[in-house]
């Protein structure tokens, strides 16, 4: 009996927490796929000028609507063909990754800051603060996101900065909800009480005792909201009230390709697949992180 306990203890000791975590990550194919694909897209966005000799804005009206490489009559110089203004489609696709990633990351950062501040305050202080925050979350949830974002972007005139700000100011609700409930779960635990008892200030208790224990959930929500922001920007641009031409946004490319849906469906297929793969990778990364950081809640 004593022996089995010893060997069990030894086994636990030999597998350090880091090793266990590594094993969980490499055993999770969705997470691996998410990391690899997302890293690839980030590299593509970063090194877009090195990957294509073409400029995404240069028009060539003599070489319009060249088909992509898998169709007859394609031009080896334009692997994914050219659009209705003769712009290289591959170059627009590669530079478009920058737009999507920038929107996803910055909008998630802004909404993350707002939502986390509100959620942590509500969870930690409770009482009236909680009432106010819960009320604000209810108001936000009641507003139709797409409609409000469209209206505000239209009023303020669409530009990349405006779209990012509007999305950042609209998408904080899930951060607030998740952070509030995560903080509620840890705020009365012993180590928090101990920190309070030795006289730590409120910011210190929140930042160094509570935040490290809820940051897992924060990262998961951040990935999901990043995907949400990317999809919303694409939808706004598709509806013509988001990022304005000639910016190479994937949503805008789909919108421009829609005019030629009948004869050239590949014009919407290419940016659509890119958008789908990017959002899929981010979602799988988020789901995977949730499984790995809290395997007991899997399902």
């Amino acid at each position, binding site marked *: 009996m004593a022996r089995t306990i010893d060997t069990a203890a030894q086994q636990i000791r030999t597998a350090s927490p880091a090793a266990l975590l590594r094993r969980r990550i490499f055993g999770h194919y969705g997470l691996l796929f998410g990391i690899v694909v997302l890293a690839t897209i980030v590299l593509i966005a970063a090194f877009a000028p090195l990957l294509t000799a073409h400029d995404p804005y240069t028009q060539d009206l003599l070489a319009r609507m060249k088909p992509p490489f898998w169709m007859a009559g394609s031009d080896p110089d334009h692997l994914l063909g050219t659009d209705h203004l003769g712009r290289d489609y591959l170059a627009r696709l590669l530079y478009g990754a920058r737009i999507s990633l920038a929107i996803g990351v910055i909008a998630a950062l802004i909404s993350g800051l707002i939502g986390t501040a509100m959620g942590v305050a509500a969870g930690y202080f409770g009482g009236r603060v909680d009432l106010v925050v819960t009320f604000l979350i209810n108001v936000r949830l*009641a507003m139709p996101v*797409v*409609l409000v974002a469209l209206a505000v972007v239209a009023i303020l005139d669409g530009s990349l900065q405006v779209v990012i700000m509007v999305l950042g100011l609209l998408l904080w609700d899930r951060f607030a909800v998740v952070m509030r409930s995560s903080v509620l779960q840890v705020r009365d635990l012993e180590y928090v009480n101990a920190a309070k008892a030795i006289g730590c200030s409120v910011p210190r208790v929140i930042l160094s005792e509570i935040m490290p224990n809820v940051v897992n959930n924060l990262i998961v929500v951040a990935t999901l909201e990043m995907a949400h922001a990317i999809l919303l920007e694409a939808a706004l641009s598709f509806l013509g009230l988001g990022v304005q031409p000639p910016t190479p946004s994937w949503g805008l490319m789909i919108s421009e390709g829609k005019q030629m849906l*009948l004869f050239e469906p590949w014009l919407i297929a290419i940016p659509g697949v890119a958008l789908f793969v990017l959002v899929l990778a981010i*979602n799988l990364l988020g789901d995977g992180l949730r499984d790995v950081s809290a395997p007991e809640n899997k399902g």
Partner: protein
Amino acid sequence: MLAFALKRLGLAVLVTLTVSLLSFSLLFMSGDPASAIAGENAGAADIEAIRTLYGFDRPFLVQYADWLFSALRGDFGQSYYFKLPVSELIADRLSVTMLLGVCGISFALLTAVPLGVAAAMRPNSFIDRTALFLSVMGQAMPSFWFGLVLIVIFSIRLGWLPPSGTAGWQNFVMPTIVLGYYAMPAIMRLTRAGMLEVLGADYIRTARAKGASEWRVMFKHALRNAVVPVVSLAAVQMGFMLGGSIVVESIFALHGAGYLAWESIGRNDLPTVQALILIFSMFYIVFTFLSDLANAWLDPRIRVG
């Protein structure tokens, strides 16, 4: 129960008022609404005339109160573009959107609940993996792109369905699929998780021990309990879907309230936009209020807590 209902009702009214204030202030975000209506070539006197005509010279809160009390009576003002009462414009468009919403949520429930139950009955089986695959796809697929893909396949290649319009039931098939598929993943995941949890409960073991058939255990004992959170999620999703119908309606040129909202935003027709934001919000508020009541009625713990 009554106290709980009244509290929830009070919250719903407060939320509605706040949303109405926000959507009303949209008019003033653009700067001076009078010069926006007058157009670029209007002189100072014209702008002044429009300002008094529409009452923009009054204090903000007076204008808001005026708008709110008219809205309560169903009068949302005049559309700048059509020069018609907004309520008239919206009324017949709204029925199209409601129909689309009902079709969409029915499609989502009819696919998600059976899939979720089947997936929970045999975890890690082929059907479980298919259900997971479908929900992961659904969450990553941009709905406007999915709509276009359906148009390419069913309208252009196969010629089965009309790509746009509001003429008959055929026009609703693809919008229903797109809107329903948007709501399906969340419902499917919740059904599966709920069934898995319920199937581990003691009363399921008891039912099996009594010798109840597997079919009876699943549908009489398990599903009835697992479906409670699904109903409230469906109500919330329904509210989101009506708000999200703007994308779907604009792809298929389905002339509902969402399409009207899109057109009105493009035309700077703010009274119509304000009214639609308020109406879509109220749908969400009413649906969540009803689902809160239903939950409290089904589960006494919520009433007290």
